[in-house]
């Protein structure tokens, strides 16, 4: 679901966020993301050490972030939410910030943020999302 047949991905990461993830990984070990919904710090990506947050059958694996020097970082979202996001390409960025649920980056004074754009026609075709017929 997350990756098209020719390797097209629906997730990416900015260079600044990639550098930051390298630092966080050095401090906390391998990381993963789960996109949150709802109030307060919701509608934002939460970043956890692998194993802290359990994904399950109710989640969609959107893809993985490829960052030099790191194992691929998986990105998940609940299947409910994915229904509304399936036409969207996500780029994980980082801004100055303060709080973030239990996400790992907040003590650094940073907050991950999703930048998004609609998938283009080629990507929609890759993911089988073009209208049929």
């Amino acid at each position, binding site marked *: 679901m997350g990756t098209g047949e020719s390797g097209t991905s629906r997730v990416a990461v900015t260079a600044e966020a990639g550098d930051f993830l390298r630092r966080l990984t050095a401090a906390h070990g391998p990381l993963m993301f789960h996109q949150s919904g*709802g*109030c*307060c710090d919701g*509608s934002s990506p939460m970043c956890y050490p692998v194993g802290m947050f359990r994904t399950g059958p109710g989640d969609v694996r959107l893809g993985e972030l490829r960052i030099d020097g790191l194992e691929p970082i998986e990105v998940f979202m609940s299947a409910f*939410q994915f229904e*509304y996001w399936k036409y969207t390409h996500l780029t994980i960025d980082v801004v100055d910030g303060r709080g973030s649920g239990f996400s790992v980056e907040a003590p650094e004074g940073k907050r991950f943020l999703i930048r998004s754009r609609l998938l283009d026609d080629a990507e929609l075709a890759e993911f089988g999302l073009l209208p049929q017929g």
Partner: protein
Amino acid sequence: MTLTADPSAVAEPDDVPAADAPTVYARPGEDGSVVSYRARYDHYIGGKYVAPASGQYFEDITPVTGQGFCEIARGTAPDVDRAVDAAWAAFPAWGKTSPAERAVILNKIADRMEANLEALAVAETWENGKPVRETLAADLPLAIDHFRYFAGAIRAQEGGAAELDQDTVAYHFHEPLGVVGQIIPWNFPILMAVWKLAPALAAGNCVVLKPAEQTPASIHVLIDLIGDLLPDGVLNVVNGFGFEAGAPLASHPRIRKIAFTGETTTGRLIMQYASERLIPVTLELGGKSPNIFFEDVADAKDSFYDKALEGFTFFALNQGEVCTCPSRALVQRSIYDGFVADGLERVGKVKQGDPLDLSTMIGAQASNDQLEKILSYIEIGKAEGAKLITGGERADLGGDLAGGYYVQPTVFEGRNSMRIFQEEIFGPVLALTSFDTYDDAISIANDTLYGLGAGVWSRNGSQLYRAGRAIEAGRVWSNTYHQYPAHAAFGGYKQSGIGRENHKMMLDHYQQTKNLLVSYADGPMGFF
């Protein structure tokens, strides 16, 4: 002001702004201010302030200017352990106090807050960025009334005695859970803390509370005022970040319950921890609340119509940082053009400015990351093809407010399938659409992952009732919005959470049921 639950329930505070009160409050710590923050706040554990185990502090920033104003202890697991120890040490005595004793204390807390309402309101505004007219008229009066409500509720609560047969009686007693954990959001830092604290304390529990890292300080202004009223260790506050202090609290092996207000991923993580400890949770996780305006609203341009226009504009209350923000407006097509034009005119009159100015209606978003997220959603709305009708920009208020986090009230027109209609932006951003029939309205209203709040506006009582019952949400405001009286249950359907807050039923979330099953029969049952 109708924002208060029941204005008559809150007596005139001793220091309510007098007629000659300033129109702009001095900033905390400046000459003439009604309140000052301390330079640094440690953890409040066992009735005194203790330094964090890590020795580290972080800066607390006011969103009014974007500048730091105090330091906050950076809590970690050892601090949480210490707080849980202090709470358990206090519990044997506190849990055995009579309801009357606890009610007296809760009422004293309310009285102390009322006598210092203005100071608390200014402190809250400075930390959160919300307009002082809201903190004066809503946040603090509601918090005060909440303590009084639960002081009354615990006095009036009774167990039960059931005569099962002539010789057998089932007695039901309420008992406190013990030590509970509470994780507080940043949108109403004091009020949301009180929503959790008042029922927990009334029921005889001891509390370890973690304020949001965006707004950790105003709760300490409150503790400075009321700390002496509670026995040491009954209420403990551990500051810090979610990852470092919130997770150790939520996963602590010696808490008996965890309550959280926030977003869905953290909500799941808290349930995951709770499942490992087999403890109950209450979760309030937000929404994407529909606000439905049926055509008969426009039958007359009277005071009811005026009220409905205020209802349309309520998305801007608290800068949209309300879990029940009416962020989707559904307007019947037959009145759409006229009603929306009038609604936009009302939105245009929302005065944005210095949150400490009594005339300001919309202040600052609570944090820089919140500002960035809202702006990113405005871009998403544009990219999806929603029509930007008004606003859509960061607001530059000049002077040192230019460093604050202000967003113009923003209205988009679009379709309910768009992401700005489906995701909680938690900002002053309204997603507006039309509907044709009653069935359309209900279908659009319920086409959401969430079900926390909703609004319905109609002059037809039966339509109002039917719509209210058909909407899958825990709170349906009918011909009103954004009222939060203590005696009305608040909580979510669907992905909006588990459990309720407010109302005396909230006591159940903080109590065990003890059943004594007693036989008064003289002889054996006859099995053996």
